[in-house]
């Protein structure tokens, strides 16, 4: 939206305005559902994870407060102007609002991921109290914010989100082009999103590598689980596909022998600490799941790179929009970054187990002692039902808006006539 509206302001080309208005409609729906379901997270810390909340409040709290004040405040106030301000403010003021929403959501990610990264690699704190009353207190705010994993993970999360957006745009415009609808604007939209997708799928590879390097240093047990590496001290392999047999401590699959050692130490023979180097109670329990989720994420990342590069190649040869099969793939590829983002989080969070704060607080000790299992069952069923309904409605409405297409809006009594 920032790019298309920026182009509209610069070129005064109505096609960019149509694109912007169309994507704002889709965004409005996503954002609305996102906020509604997101607020639950903020309160769930207290309702379901009371011990954890008391433990991390001193640290987590300031990040969360900063998120609310600096980021959420920015995006939510400008959202009103973004959605309903077209006829009330000058174009450049509207553009500033779009920019505000963009920056707000990016900042949001910063503070949330900082908080989560602190759980992965705690820094800038000390522990006060004991047992159920123990808690972490900030000693150095900036060391807490820039803890060893936060920069890598913020970038990785940002890029994951940008890719999810770019592939949604690619998907919808590919669909229009295949159907021969809205050709001109769809080609423009597709090209813009393709540039974004190509850049960020490539940089995502770098950031992923840097992130994994960080895991190797800071969370060796997690890295070992990600690659299913058991031996205490041996070169570790890098798998493309595989299966971890936890009972027999064996990982079978196709991969590069010593590949992980090479990536971490630039040496195929370098030993990597395996899972057996850690006491049983300090290892993630779902090793195969961590392994699989991690590898699905990487495979999808590779597919996204291949897709975008091939599309760029065809664009260069001038055949991009004639290659129907590729457009067909792009129509469905929207699901790929979504899956990658989800499984990436799964492997990051499951790989951190059994800790909720790495090396400090165990997940099994962090939940609300007073909340009974019947309470949990009640809330699980409640939200399962509500979220399922929302999911169906969301898909239905987005689909409807896409089927309607961008001109549907133009038919209503507004200014532009290009079509």
């Amino acid at each position, binding site marked *: 939206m920032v790019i298309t509206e920026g182009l509209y302001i610069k070129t005064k080309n109505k096609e960019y305005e149509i694109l912007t208005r169309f994507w704002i409609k889709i965004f*409005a*729906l996503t954002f*609305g*559902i996102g906020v*509604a379901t997101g*607020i639950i997270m*903020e*309160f769930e*810390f*207290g*309702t*379901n994870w*009371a011990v954890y*909340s*008391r433990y991390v*409040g*001193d640290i*987590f*709290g*300031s990040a*969360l*407060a*900063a998120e*609310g*004040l*600096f980021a*959420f*405040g*920015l995006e*939510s*106030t*400008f959202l*009103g*102007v973004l*959605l*309903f*301000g*077209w006829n*009330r*403010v000058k174009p450049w003021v509207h553009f500033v609002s779009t920019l*505000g929403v963009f920056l707000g959501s990016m900042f949001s990610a910063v503070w949330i991921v900082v908080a989560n990264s602190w759980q992965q690699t705690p820094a800038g704190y000390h522990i006060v109290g004991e047992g*159920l009353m123990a*808690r972490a*207190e*900030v*000693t150095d*705010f900036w060391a807490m914010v820039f803890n060893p994993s936060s920069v890598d993970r913020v970038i990785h999360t940002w890029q994951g989100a940008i890719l999810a957006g770019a592939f949604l745009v690619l998907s919808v415009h590919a669909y229009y082009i295949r159907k021969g609808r809205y050709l001109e604007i769809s080609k423009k939209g597709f090209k813009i999103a393709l540039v974004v997708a190509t850049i960020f799928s490539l940089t995502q590879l770098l950031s992923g590598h840097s992130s994994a390097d960080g895991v190797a240093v800071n969370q060796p047990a997690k890295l070992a689980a990600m690659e299913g590496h058991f031996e205490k001290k041996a070169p570790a392999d890098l798998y493309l596909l595989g299966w971890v047999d936890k009972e027999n401590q064996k990982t079978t699959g196709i991969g590069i022998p010593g590949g992980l050692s090479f990536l971490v130490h630039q040496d195929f023979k370098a030993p990597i600490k395996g899972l057996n180097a850690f006491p049983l109670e300090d290892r993630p329990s779902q090793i195969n799941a961590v392994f699989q989720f991690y590898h699905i994420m990487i495979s999808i990342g590779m597919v996204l790179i291949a897709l975008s590069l091939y599309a760029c190649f065809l664009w260069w040869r001038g055949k991009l929009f004639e290659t129907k099969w590729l457009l067909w793939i792009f129509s469905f590829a929207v699901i790929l970054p979504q899956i990658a983002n989800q499984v990436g989080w799964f492997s990051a969070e499951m790989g951190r187990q059994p800790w909720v704060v790495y090396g400090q607080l165990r997940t099994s000790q962090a939940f*609300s*002692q*007073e909340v009974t299992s019947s*309470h949990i069952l009640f*809330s699980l069923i*409640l*939200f399962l039902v*509500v979220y399922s*309904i929302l999911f169906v*409605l969301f898909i239905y*409405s987005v689909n409807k808006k896409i089927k309607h297409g961008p001109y549907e809006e133009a038919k*209503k009594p*507004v200014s532009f006539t290009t079509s």
Partner: protein
Amino acid sequence: MNYFLGVDYPTLWYLVIGLLFSGYAILEGFDFGAGAWHLFFKKDISRRIAINAIAPVWDANQVWLVIGGGALFAGFPVMYATMLSAMYVPFMLFLMFNVLRAAAIKFRSAEEMRWWRRTWDIVYSVSSSMIAFLLGVVLANILQGFALGPNFSYQGDAFFSFLNPYAIMVGFTTLSLFMTQGAIYLLLKTEGRLHLRLTFLLQKGMIFFIISFAVTTLYTLVFIPEVTENFREKPIYFVVPILSFLAVANVPRLVSKKRYMLALIFSSLTMSFLLVLVAIQLYPTLLISTIDPKYSVTIYNAASSQKSLGIMLTIVLIGAPLLGAYFFFLYRTFNGKVKLDDTSY
């Protein structure tokens, strides 16, 4: 203990959170109130105008809940954790109604069918009312106290124990207060027949509020006299209830003079004074333990470290003016009566 302007950090943070919650009550108060009146408007066009009166601002108003929750988590983690886990069921319901309300606003306009719009109208109105009601219920429970044992552990566990007569009374009081606020806000945003109807509805809302407020106050004085302890020690505090009474009394006068903006300010003041009342009653306790006062959660045993509170006060000092500027810009942009256009719901 660190001090700023002669006030200790936990007390300052107590004030910040109080300010955030009263901002939330004032702003989302008219959103929820408008939602509660929704089914009283008969025509689809009236309902559309009512929804579009809050459409550009309700997301922004929600910020106050997010920041308030974050501030509570940050400033008083013990309070945040103990309160939310002790009132698990009401908070889960509160969150669910928030989700449903957001969904109703987004999806209502997606289809033209009568049954579709009617369904979402009901979801929207019921969830707005229920949120207002539940906020009162939570407040009442805080005033009554919890069965807190050592280590802030909550000893009670009955599923619906949060729903006692007192809680229901306070629930109706917040609902009626929000409905008053909502009606005034809609008066500010509407014209013609709908506007006339709202003048009439506002009167009903005020009567509803005065009755529930009077009943609740009486009940408080008779059955839970301990909450007025702080007042008996310092009679000067009685100025607050008197001020809130004066503020309420001013609203009908201003409405009849058509000074809706001022009326909205005065009904907001009423809300703030009532919250100040609660804040004085509690201070410095946050959650009273009904088992033994030594197990109570206070602003001192619940607070984050002095360093952390200091950092966050800095964040607030930087962030608050920014947020104020955003809100000024937003409300200035959407000043005036609702005009439906192609971007409306």
